């Protein structure tokens, strides 16, 4: 999701998808990165934590899809390098091949045009901060990008009580902080106390206090979380935050945590359990980390990692070409140029972010969209494949249902209404509903014209083009749509505050967990992202049931049912899931760009000398 007021955005237009994705993803998940469309390798689950050098020599880079311009043409066939677009394209079954390091030492430079804000994982709310913070700090659990399922990080194992209320984690033995002190369950409790303390500037206090009843230390290596109600997303959403050291921070006032040198970066004080240690942070310029030689998964191959901040995305692309930057995200428009560089690999991967437009369903605001036929007709009238092809230059997928391709709940074959482009069907639906063309060509019913305004945020080139397409394509079926752009904050206030709109277009990012209550549940009208007052008791019930269900297969069925109701009701139209594009210099090995966690094996990254 974009931050409309960022300087960088002003300078260069919309953020790259990777940026928007990472930004939002970081919040919910606490890990950076994004998921891959990588090799459609076998189903092996190489647990990287357990098998650092489980290396076949299969060239991992080659297996990950280098972008083929022409093959990106059709979004449904957009999956390159043999990934089939349907069920097989879900993340399950993807595999990274880790090769043994042929060289130790060296520096990896990652480039971005957004600087971090804080290093303290308790306070991190943006992708840039998370990118650096997650190399220094580790959570008790991480989401394996190969399976999109939770795996132990600091925790060796966990037990979930049969009622789904208590989670008991056992920490691995012998993990130490970077200053040599042992990690204990007290550190975990301390971290969650800080996360849930209203005096800190933690942005997640509300959700966590609602979800977690208590955190108790059982013994040095055992920690017990008691929830207020069963919550299936708990593991992947709320146990992945980096753990901070109590022995360093115990005397810091919670209100001062954000400005403590621990959070703003001080060598020797900003310490975690991760593969890299803090060295220096020159604001708006670079952050340098050095390897933690005593890292519990083994000494990292790299000597140094540098997060480099440059003015805009063009400079990122430029410096990728010159080799000044080893790893960074680029825009679709830059792919052609980068692809011709012999020293670079381009990796296209699916993400959890999506574009959608929303119908105002509150009859006090407008009655235009009360009929399901109208809502459905408008989506039928949009040629989404063509939009992705021309506006996103092919880097995206038409949404089938509401679930992202990466989710294990993605189930396109079971979705009944796919809304393939069909303007005749659109006209037919409108006729059925009694909207007939008036003298000016615009349909009307009972003297009311089918005419409305669609809002989007100014400065986002892609969305501005999308609403222009709406106007043009809907006009063909006799619907008048007036695009209107607004500055980000004013727009945000309109859609989440005053809710004074007929229709708006924006982007959002789903969590790794498929729970979508925040958008579809009627209670999410207050404080959630159900901005158009959608309410369907059946959907509410399915969502409630699914969040209490821990069995993945059962949950998937529930979500499939829910998706079919949503696609029938169509309160919001999810248009597409954009893909992200990362570039990695060929001298870098074992680095796998993906939307879940590209840092899960940071200690195994290595660069040729």
């Amino acid at each position, binding site marked *: *999701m974009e*931050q*409309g*007021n*960022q*300087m*960088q*955005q002003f300078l260069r237009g919309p953020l790259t998808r990777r940026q928007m994705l990472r*930004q*939002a993803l970081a*919040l*919910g998940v606490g890990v950076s990165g994004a998921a891959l469309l990588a090799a459609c390798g076998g189903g092996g689950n190489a647990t990287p934590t357990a098998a650092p050098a489980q290396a076949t020599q299969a060239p991992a880079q080659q297996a990950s899809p280098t972008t083929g311009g022409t093959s990106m043409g059709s979004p449904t066939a957009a999956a390159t390098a043999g990934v089939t677009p349907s069920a097989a394209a879900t993340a399950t079954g993807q595999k990274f091949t880790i090769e043994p390091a042929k060289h130790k030492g060296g*520096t990896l*430079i990652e480039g971005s045009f957004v*600087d971090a*804000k*804080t290093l303290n994982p308790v306070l991190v*709310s*943006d992708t840039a901060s998370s990118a650096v913070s997650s190399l220094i700090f580790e959570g008790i659990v991480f989401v394996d990008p190969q399976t999109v399922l939770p795996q132990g990080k600091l925790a060796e194992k966990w037990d979930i009580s049969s009622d789904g209320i208590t989670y008991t984690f056992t920490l691995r033995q012998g993990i130490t902080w970077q200053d040599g002190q042992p990690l204990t369950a007290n550190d975990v409790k301390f971290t969650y106390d800080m996360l849930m303390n*209203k*005096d800190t*500037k*933690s*942005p*997640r*206090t*509300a*959700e966590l206090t609602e979800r977690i009843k208590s955190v108790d230390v059982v013994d040095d290596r055992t920690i017990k979380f008691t929830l207020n109600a069963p919550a299936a997303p708990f593991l992947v*959403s709320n146990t992945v935050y980096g753990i901070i050291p109590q022995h360093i921070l115990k005397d810091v006032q919670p*209100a001062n945590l*954000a*400005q403590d040198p621990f959070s*703003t970066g001080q060598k020797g004080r900003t310490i975690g359990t991760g593969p890299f240690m803090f060295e220096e942070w*020159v*604001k*708006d*310029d*670079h952050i*340098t980390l050095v390897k933690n030689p005593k890292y519990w998964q083994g000494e990292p191959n790299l000597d140094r990692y*540098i997060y*480099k901040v*440059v*003015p805009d995305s063009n*400079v990122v692309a*430029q*410096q990728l070409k010159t080799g*000044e930057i080893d790893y960074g995200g680029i825009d679709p428009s830059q792919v052609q140029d980068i692809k011709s560089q012999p020293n670079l690999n381009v990796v296209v991967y699916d993400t959890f972010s999506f574009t959608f437009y929303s119908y105002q369903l509150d009859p006090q605001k407008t009655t235009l969209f009360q009929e399901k036929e109208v809502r459905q007709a408008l989506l039928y009238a949009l040629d989404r494949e063509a939009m992705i092809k021309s506006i996103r230059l092919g880097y995206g997928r038409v949404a089938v249902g509401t679930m992202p391709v990466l989710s294990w709940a993605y189930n396109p074959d079971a979705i009944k209404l796919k809304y393939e482009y069909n303007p005749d069907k659109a006209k037919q639906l409108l006729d059925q509903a009694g909207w007939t063309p008036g003298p000016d060509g615009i349909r009307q019913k009972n003297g009311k014209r089918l005419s409305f305004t669609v809002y989007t945020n100014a400065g986002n080139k892609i969305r501005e083009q999308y609403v222009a397409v709406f106007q043009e394509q809907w006009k063909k079926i006799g619907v008048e749509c007036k695009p209107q752009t607004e*500055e*980000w*904050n*004013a727009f*945000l206030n309109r859609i*989440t505050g005053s809710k004074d709109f007929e229709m708006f277009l*924006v982007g*959002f*990012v*789903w*969590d790794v967990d498929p729970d979508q209550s*925040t958008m579809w549940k009627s209670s999410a009208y207050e*404080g959630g992202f159900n901005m158009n007052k959608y309410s369907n008791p059946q959907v509410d019930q399915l969502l409630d049931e699914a969040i209490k269900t821990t069995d993945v297969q059962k949950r998937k069925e529930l979500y499939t049912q829910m998706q079919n109701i949503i696609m029938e009701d169509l309160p919001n139209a999810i248009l597409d899931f954009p893909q992200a594009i990362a570039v990695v210099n060929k001298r870098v090995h074992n680095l796998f760009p993906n939307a879940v966690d590209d840092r899960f094996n940071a200690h195994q990254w290595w660069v040729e000398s």
Partner: protein
Amino acid sequence: MGRYILWRLIQLIPIVIGITFVTFAIANLVPGSPLSDLAFQRGIRPEDIARIRHQLGLDQPIYIRYFQWLSNIARGDLGISLVTYQPVSKLIMEKLPNTLLLTGTSLLLALLVSIPIGVFAAVKRNSWFDQITTVGAVAGFAVPTFWLGLMLIIVFSVKFREWGLPSLPPGGMYDLRSGGGIGDRIIHLIMPAFTLAFVQTAGWTRYIRSQMLEVLRQDYMRIAEAKGLPQRLVIFRHGFRNAILPLVTLLGLDLPGLFSGAVITETIFSWNGLGRLIVDSTFKRDYTVIMDTVLFISILTVLANLLADIVYAQLDPRVRFD
């Protein structure tokens, strides 16, 4: 003299207060908020944002925030960044040396080039050299800094590299991979310093030329010449020293130009100085950093003007303070 300086310092107070007001108003009237990144994110509730807004004091009425800020800076407390929570004083002190290095180098460069050219153009008035200088100066004035900077990058970094020639780094202060030696730092300084110096050189060449022309017309010049002094001595001892005097004032007046030029140059060349700090903070709506940095530069400018006036008095006995 002492009374004059004191009087001038007292005069500065309303000026500085005026500056604080304008700075505060401009920074805060821009639509947006340092917290807008938090909005519309899954997992972050409106109540979380409201809480952090309150903790940062952003929920206070705007006039209270103004007086709060004034009373803080009056006590020497510049506050913390609203985005990174670092002390602003630390940020300014971190960036100031970099900006001084860049502006100082370009100033030196501009003087070294413009003084000889200006003097020579005046002495050889209406010669082909003078004509070229005039055209060059007008062109120099007309070239926008950002355009020049980008052109230099395209030619000397991008194209030279493509052509396999030794190229200059497009940005940054030193090479991150190697850690940066003194030679590396000088190489990184060349293009930004040149860009910043370019416009100044144009202005100063014209200025020195016209000053010099004026001085050359003076009676004492004719006398010196009549005495049979060598041409070089006449021009440099009697002419140049008199012509250079007003340059001191000009330097003082030029300081804001130097800083505003640095804002653009630093942004283009990723030069990690105060100018880039202002630009980055503006886009992040980091109000305290914007306000404190702009105020800091403003006070620096006002003081530099004062200093220029005092030095001028010292140099020119004709100037008296009453």
